[in-house]
């Protein structure tokens, strides 16, 4: 199913699609995105096979059902249906009372049954939207289908390979297809849409949505038209996009290509184009869609699904707060750069908000999460984080010590307070103890002391550095006050 561009929502101005000819004005870019997402399930869409990890040896996660052996039948995976419903609800979609599966028929060696079980005219959900920045992107449909296998060719493509191998580990893995209307107007918007979708999917727990692992695949379709025109130009669909960066670049490239085609008097051809990461360009692919008539018909092996309304309402009620709402709340407390990271990940946002609720100071906690937690991906319980942040804030441990305590707490599961106590990390704030050390520092650095007294304030840095070396546990605030007093 491709996200068509047949009813654009733009104000009406006389015709002016991307037709050949003279046009000195601006071009408007029109983008719809079709996203395939692998829902978080233990097993495949229609059989009990486990979903293979990325590096599993070929054909190790297969059974008679996903191999498409004669005589087998599909049985739908409830967890996949649930993930699809949650996604649809989070995208504000309508859930029709009746939904069914259909067969999409075409022959290819990575498709064991000779048809893909998908959804055609009665998808699981329709007519939703997702707010991305200030743009409300309409969602046409979210439906459920199964993935195909993978081909590995010795040689070039299938038709020219001297030997080809089929790996069916992915055959039958569930996929949700999320189709947007052509409401996006730039590469930035398309990328932001895909990223927002990822955040939403992770927030509701429907998918890990990792693009690099192929759990989220975005296929934009792109056309250009004269600014102000209400008719749509001819679109191309892009495939082989493996990251948000690639999505952005591929669209920029394709828009530019279309503009050049049109401005040089040519016409854009409706086709599927592949993105080459190596060459950073799109190239024409022989599209299956043009040669094939998929002969959709209702899957007779699966009775139509009558979704239990009570179940749907239960799922709706259990949906977490939408990421956009949470982000708005976080922006009231934190700088946008921090919100961009904390608000994009439900676990980080939960960690932040819970730790703060447990008494952790907001600013330093956000800072800690952005600089320490997000890059390492190592999560501590909010209670422990709150405890550590308070220790740091009250001047009991240095930042370096806090980092070590943090990592140890993650590894061992012990509380930061225990670890700090055990290592004697607790900062020394006692003046009588620090006075001895401060005096030793001044004695050992006569030049710096003289410089400081002569008015060179930066000489204090050298003195503090020496002090930290001699006494890492020294409370820096108390120590510097002491030095100042001794030098006065």
């Amino acid at each position, binding site marked *: 199913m491709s996200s068509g561009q047949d009813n654009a929502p733009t104000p009406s101005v006389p015709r002016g699609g991307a037709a050949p000819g003279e046009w000195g004005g601006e071009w408007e870019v029109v983008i719809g995105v079709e996203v395939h997402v692998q829902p978080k399930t233990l097993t495949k869409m229609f059989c009990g096979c486990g979903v293979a990890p990325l590096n599993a040896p070929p054909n190790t996660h297969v059974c008679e059902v996903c191999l498409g*052996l004669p*005589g087998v*039948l599909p049985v739908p995976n409830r967890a996949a249906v649930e993930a699809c419903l949650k996604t649809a609800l989070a995208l504000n979609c309508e859930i029709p009372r009746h939904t069914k599966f259909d067969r999409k*028929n075409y022959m290819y*060696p990575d498709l064991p049954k000779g*048809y893909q079980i998908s959804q055609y005219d009665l998808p699981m959900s329709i007519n939703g939207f997702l707010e991305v920045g200030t743009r409300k992107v309409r969602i046409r449909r979210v439906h459920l289908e199964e993935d195909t296998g993978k081909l590995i060719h010795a040689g070039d493509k299938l038709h020219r390979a001297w030997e080809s191998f089929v790996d069916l580990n992915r055959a039958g893995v569930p996929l949700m297809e999320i189709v947007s209307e052509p409401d996006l107007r730039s590469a930035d918007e398309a990328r932001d849409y895909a990223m927002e979708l990822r955040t939403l999917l992770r927030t509701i727990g429907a998918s890990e949505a990792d693009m690099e692992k192929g759990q989220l695949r975005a296929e934009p379709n792109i056309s250009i038209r004269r600014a102000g025109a209400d008719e749509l130009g001819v679109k191309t669909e892009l495939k082989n996009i493996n990251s948000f960066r690639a999505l952005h670049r591929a669209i920029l490239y394709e828009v530019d290509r279309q503009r050049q085609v049109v401005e040089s008097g040519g016409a854009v051809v409706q086709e599927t184009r592949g993105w080459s990461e190596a060459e950073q360009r799109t190239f024409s692919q022989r599209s299956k869609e043009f040669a094939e008539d998929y002969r959709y*018909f209702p899957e*007779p092996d699966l009775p139509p699904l009558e979704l239990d309304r009570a179940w749907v309402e239960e799922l709706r009620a259990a949906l977490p707060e939408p990421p956009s709402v949470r982000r708005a709340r976080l922006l009231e407390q934190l700088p946008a750069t921090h919100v961009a990271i904390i608000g994009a990940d439900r676990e980080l946002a939960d960690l932040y908000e819970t730790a703060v609720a447990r008494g952790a100071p907001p600013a330093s906690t956000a800072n800690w999460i952005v600089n320490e937690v997000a890059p390492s991906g190592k999560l501590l319980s909010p209670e422990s984080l709150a405890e550590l942040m308070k220790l740091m804030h009250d001047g009991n441990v240095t930042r370096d010590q806090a980092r070590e305590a943090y990592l140890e707490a993650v590894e061992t599961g012990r509380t930061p307070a225990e670890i700090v106590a055990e290592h004697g990390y607790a900062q020394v704030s006692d003046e009588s103890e620090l006075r001895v050390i401060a005096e030793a520092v001044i004695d050992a650095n006569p030049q710096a002391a003289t410089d400081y007294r002569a008015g060179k304030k930066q000489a204090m840095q050298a003195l503090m550095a020496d002090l930290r070396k001699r006494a890492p546990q020294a409370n820096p605030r108390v120590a510097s006050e002491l030095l100042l007093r001794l030098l006065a």
Partner: protein
Amino acid sequence: MSDDLTALTIKDASRLLRLGTISAADLVAAHVERIERVDPHVKAYLRFTPELWEKQADEADRKIRQGDAPPLAGIPLAVKDVLCVRGVETTAGSQILKGFRPPYTGTAVGRLFEAGAVMLGVTNCDEFAMGSSTENSGYFPTRNPWDLERVPGGSSGGSAAAVAAGEAIVALGTDTGGSIRQPAALCGVVGMKPTYGRVSRYGLIAFASSLDQVGPFARSVDDAAITLALMSGYDPLDATSSDRPGMEVLNNSEGGVKGMRLGVPREYYDVKGIEPGVKAAIDAALFILRREGAEIVDISLPHTDYGLAAYYIIAPAECSSNLARFDGVRYGLSEVDAPNITDEYLQTRRKGFGTEVRRRVMLGTYALSSGYYDAYYLKAQKVRTLIKRDFDDAFKKCDAIVSATSPTVAFPIGAKTQDPLSMYLCDVLTLGGNLAGLPGISVPCGTSEGLPVGFQVLGPQWGESVVLRVARAYEAASEMRAEVASVV
């Protein structure tokens, strides 16, 4: 002695086995001896399963000795070549699956194995169950045990002939448009098609998924009933299987027809091409049932004429998709020397499929094609709904529907092979039951021109017990028992 053992019913054989008069091994040996004598003439079997029968007979004898014999312990069983049995070559009567040994056993067969049945071998059938004479087998035609120059019917002709020729006590077939009932009629045995969803289709190599059902061939209504009951019931591997308890088919299935209303559809009674001898046998059967206290009522199934046309759209449409998996890539025949994948598909399928299968794949592909879908497939589904409604209306006026099973007795080999339409008309009285998903049985009701005639009883959805009740009453009152043909 040995021929006596090959003419037994399940009931009689079980009594002898439990009394210790014979062992399961004796019973198998008698059948093997009988098969060696008659099967070269009848050609009911495609292949034999000595490893299975030895193991299963031993097991049955052990359990009988221990006194915990399951209901079918030691009963020789023949299995149609469309039902997958682990490790046993299963080819759907087609060259394209030559050498294919499923790694799993289908549910219906598996349940009979658990019930103690002893599998003798795999029986011949029309390729992918498409045909009414078993002449479309990709291997050889099977002959009617009552007249070796005639067909046994089809598509489950091998199973019907095996029971009729004393080569098995019970056999499994599948019925998509009459493929159990019609050969049962032509071979003079009992054959039953259950309500769609009563028996799991898991392991049944699909012809038309919305029509296919597994059912038994036997020498008595009792035997058919118990075999069906043991196969029935919910299967988590088949989403179209019902959760109704299998044993319910036996409830109230005795007690006679006194006070029952039996409907005779005028469209069936006077069906075009019905032979006078067949009509006379049906009249005699109706007379007996009336004498037993049934009320015979005239009914109408007004859309009967459109049933055949609708059937020959829906069944080929589903088959065109179901047979797409036979592409030479993973199992069965493979023309790997083809220069590219498209040619490999074409060559494999051209070589592996017979004429009738290719005809139906083409018909079905056409009917599902874009631009023709509404005119053919969708229209046929609407007719199907009307036919269901016909039956719903009819069952307001009667408890069961009775008719001939086949308009003709067994016809000579080759008589209809040049005229597919005349072959299709063999199913005109049976396929309505498939389109509506209803249970039906064919029981022997005398002969015409020395050849068996079958009497069909159709019941409402889930009304197997009504069907069995009428069939039992007729069998008892007519003393018309399935006999074993001497053959040689």
